[in-house]
């Protein structure tokens, strides 16, 4: 035992010395820089980036190669919150929760503080996560082997129970949104029967909806739409906050909340280490955890509480450290980026497995240290180069929207490299915007979407393998008990504090219809149609979709009835969770007609952009779109417009065509004149 500890310490020390050699540090830094750039661009993350770098690592020794690759993989999470805070556009699926508090802070003029808090919490999260893994290495293999399918099933149930928490004061709408999320996650070929569920005879939907396009649609487009509707800067009439002061304040926030950072990073690392959980859920778990445990969080989260940003970002960066462990110890990638890393293992003649924790322990430790150091370097780069980014929030909307809108489109296109991605983006953009307008919380939908497929899979495996015995496993029982406790505690607390509020049957009133009810009706129709489609499938394929569908209909129906027949208590006076758990659209002062008109104009621009992509290809459409948008929406000067269009297009060409070699979708013009295909993306 003692000799083992000494061996561990020796390996850890040796690894540290090896990593600190100048050449390796240089590659690590280069990787970190690339990671941040890729992190900032929505839709492109560790996956694409790492795949791109692998050919360059052939000639390196394994220590350098993995320092380089992990430098990139572990810092994309540091770049992710930048667009999330500034535009409400999550830079990756793992930063969706950051939007909820980051955007209100930017609107208040505190973008600098929010950015600084996210850099610092990314740094601390990444380091804490890596340290936890460094200590846990000897026990990781037995621990991971304990997590069978029933345990994973229990964990997914625990995850989905967060829906209750993330629904805020709209529990029924939250449940309905979560249910819809689960149903949407089941689109595609059913593993049990090979039934094509809601694929409508397209091969595109065989593998379900792509996460990136859904997240960007739900969170990014609504934010951009509201910016176009409000026609202001993001931080409109906000008091001038000093940038430097904001930067200091954001970092100080992280130190003041160090205990929260530590908890969330361990949560992120632990969940990252469970193979099969998926990274997109971790930020929400941490956010939910903070919401549940932090003092006063239920009144302030979702309205620009820096702790919301800290919770989600520290967990988001800690998860790579966790995800490394199942990758090296079992060859089971803990995240998408890690799957590519497995390829790099082969290239360097390494075999994931027990050897990595014995004979190759030094290399494993060098990877852990690479992740920790990359996080420090990454945050440093962000502080050095992107501190000034906060000023973007004060720019007028005609300068922000053209570039961000087109990048969101190309980012969504990363999902599958297919036209379908753009339709999915557009569809969820409209749905997300309507949800935001009518105060339906969007977080439960994304949580249901991220976990739904796993719930069904692990349930099927658990029952088919163990019958009902899966319920007798001790870890399963512990997790389920924890879930129950987490669900019941706030209800009991609410019950105790409920003196000020009358029960709903005492608040019944004559029916009062509001145009907001229309969305509820639309929702019922949509889910009802999905259930009707599912009705004809065979039993195994339809069990979960139909059960969840009916529950969703009941929740949405009850919510609609409550809206019509029950007087609502004023916000913040207790009730279920207190506040609306999502962003406010901030456009209500404009009146319905203006909002509707400008929203149609916004989505019209998007349709025009898509039409351009279909006829002349994505790259040629970008400058045309930018010029048209800037001239027609904002009457920006020609010189500025043309420069803007030129540099954005150049960036698109270099990043997406030259470096990433995106397979562009077929275009009308390209079909008619194949010779014109010499123009990229045509």
């Amino acid at each position, binding site marked *: 035992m003692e000799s083992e500890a000494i061996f561990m310490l020796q390996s850890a020390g040796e690894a540290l010395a090896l990593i600190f050699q100048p050449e390796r540090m240089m590659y690590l830094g280069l990787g970190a820089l690339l990671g941040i750039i890729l992190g900032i661009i929505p839709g492109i993350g560790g*996956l694409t980036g*790492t*795949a791109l770098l*692998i*050919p360059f690592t*052939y000639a390196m020794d394994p220590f350098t190669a993995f320092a380089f690759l992990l430098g990139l993989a572990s810092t994309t999470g540091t770049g992710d919150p930048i667009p999330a805070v500034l535009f409400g556009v999550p830079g990756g699926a793992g930063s969706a929760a950051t939007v909820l508090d980051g955007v209100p802070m930017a609107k208040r003029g505190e973008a600098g503080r929010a950015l600084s808090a996210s850099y610092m919490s990314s740094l601390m999260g990444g380091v804490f996560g890596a340290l936890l893994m460094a200590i846990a290495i000897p026990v990781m293999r037995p621990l*991971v*082997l*304990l997590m*069978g*399918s029933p345990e994973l099933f229990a964990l997914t149930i625990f995850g989905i129970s967060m829906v209750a928490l993330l629904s805020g004061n709209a529990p029924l709408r939250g449940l309905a949104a979560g249910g819809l999320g689960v149903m949407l996650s089941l689109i595609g*070929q*059913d*593993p*049990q*029967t*090979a*039934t094509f569920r809601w694929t409508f005879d397209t*091969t*595109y939907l*065989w*593998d379900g909806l792509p996460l990136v396009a859904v997240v960007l649609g739900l969170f990014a487009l609504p934010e951009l739409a509201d910016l176009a509707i409000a026609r202001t800067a993001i931080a409109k009439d906000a008091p001038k906050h000093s940038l430097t002061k904001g930067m200091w304040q954001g970092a100080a926030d992280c130190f003041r909340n160090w205990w929260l950072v530590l908890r969330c990073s361990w949560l992120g690392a632990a969940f990252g280490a469970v*193979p*099969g959980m998926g990274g997109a859920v971790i930020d929400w778990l941490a956010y939910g955890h903070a919401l549940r445990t932090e003092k006063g969080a239920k009144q302030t989260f979702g309205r620009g509480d820096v702790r919301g940003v800290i919770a989600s970002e520290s967990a988001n960066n800690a998860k790579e450290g966790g995800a490394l462990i*199942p990758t090296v110890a*079992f*060859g*089971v*990638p803990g995240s998408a980026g890690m*799957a*590519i*890393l*497995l*390829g790099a293992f*082969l*290239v360097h*003649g390494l*075999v*994931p*497995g*027990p*050897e990595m924790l014995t004979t190759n322990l030094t290399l494993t430790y060098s990877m852990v240290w690479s992740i920790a150091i990359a996080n420090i370097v990454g945050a440093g780069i962000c502080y050095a180069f992107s501190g000034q980014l906060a000023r973007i929030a004060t720019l007028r909307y005609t300068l922000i929207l053209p570039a961000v809108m087109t990048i969101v489109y190309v980012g969504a296109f990363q999902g*599958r*490299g*297919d036209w379908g991605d753009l339709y999915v983006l557009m569809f969820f953009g409209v749905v997300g915007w309507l949800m935001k307008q009518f105060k339906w919380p969007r977080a439960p939908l994304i949580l249901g979407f991220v976990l739904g497929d*796993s719930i*069904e*899979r*692990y349930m*099927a*495996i658990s029952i*088919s*393998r163990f019958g009902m015995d899966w319920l007798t496993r001790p870890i399963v029982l512990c997790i389920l008990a924890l879930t129950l406790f987490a669900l019941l505690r706030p209800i009991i607390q609410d019950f105790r504090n409920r003196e000020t509020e009358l029960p709903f049957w005492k608040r019944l009133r004559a029916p009062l219809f509001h145009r907001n009810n229309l969305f509820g009706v639309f929702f019922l129709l949509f889910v009802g149609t999905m259930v009707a489609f599912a009705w004809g499938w065979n039993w195994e394929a339809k069990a979960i979709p139909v059960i969840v569908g009916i529950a969703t209909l009941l929740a949405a129906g009850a919510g609609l009835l409550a809206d019509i027949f029950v007087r609502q208590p004023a916000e913040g006076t207790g009730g279920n969770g207190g506040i609306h758990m999502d962003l406010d659209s901030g456009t209500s002062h404009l009146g319905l007609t203006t909002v509707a008109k400008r929203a149609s104009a916004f989505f019209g621009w998007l349709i025009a952009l898509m039409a351009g992509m279909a006829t002349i290809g994505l790259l040629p459409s970008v400058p045309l779109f930018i010029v048209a948008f800037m001239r027609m929406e904002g009457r920006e000067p020609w010189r500025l417009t043309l420069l803007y269009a030129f540099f954005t297009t150049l960036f698109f060409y270099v990043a997406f065509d030259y470096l990433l*070699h995106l*397979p562009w979708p*077929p275009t009308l013009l390209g079909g008619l004149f*194949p010779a014109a*295909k010499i123009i990229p993306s045509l």
Partner: protein
Amino acid sequence: MRSPVWRTMIAASIAALGLFAAPLQAKADPVADFYKGKTVTLTWAGQEGGTYATFGQAFIRHMAKHVPGQPTMIMRYMPGAGGLRYANHAAGVEQADGTFLGMITTDTVLYGFMFPDKVSFKPDQFQWIGSIARVQPLISVWHTKPFKTIEDLRAREAVMGATGKGSPSFQYLAIANNLLGTKIRPVLGYKGNQDMILAVERGEIDGQENTWDSWATGYPHWIAEKKLVHLVQFGTQRLPALPDVPLAIELVTNPDDKAVMEFHSSLLAAGRPIFVPSGVPAERVEALRKAFLATLKDPEYLAEAKKLSIEAESALDGAAVQALVLKAGSAPASVKSRAAQVIDLP
């Protein structure tokens, strides 16, 4: 001191070189001219990572040297619908000028033959450049489980994992149950091969289908420590490393069943095939096939193949792959429809 004689001689040699070079240039290879300075992509119809992506990447790294004009060769990925999405794309959209190469699984090829109405590509119209290596699927169990031979699988139920009903991980189990009389109970729903292997290690399932090179690259320690018992192999020849494990085709006696098993096994010998769409000019196809063969003899490639456990000696040239694909496609309709039945697709 430079004498004028030297100068004249140098000038004369340059002129002579020019004289020689001129006709050479006139005869210059149009294929080399075409590929010079171009970027050639190899698209794998699946995810990054994994054996196909890694083997493909290693192969093109060396193949680029042997293509006339030495183009840059890069890897691209287009996963979706179990490989069908890219196959459809290659047949319908991809530019057929020889700068776009593709790699699909032989399951995708067979799918195209079994369900021609569900796809928009015709496998026999692709022009095959070669196969990097064979693929040999195995049904294997963990060493502590009570199954030592195929007879044990026929005698009692074994619980085996699979990702989904439409996937190869399930189809080989179904073929075994339908044609070899085994009693495998598939547990479906695992997210990927690696998740399944982990489930095998922790005893949740008895075993699974996986290919030999996937075990060899990812789990050599299990092979060395005999942690796995391989019960049956699919293919046309027993692997040199597994001389005692029966081939599925040897276990079938009924001629109808044998024809179906042959259909499912025939292409595995060309397991990692590279193709270009129909319409690519013949001289470029020829050049690519030659480059493919030259790569197979390239000692640098062979060294790397060894490191990655690529069975380079099992590679096939383009003509051989083409012949196998055509043969599979010409199987009688009754065999194809039965072949579709035994993999239990709707």
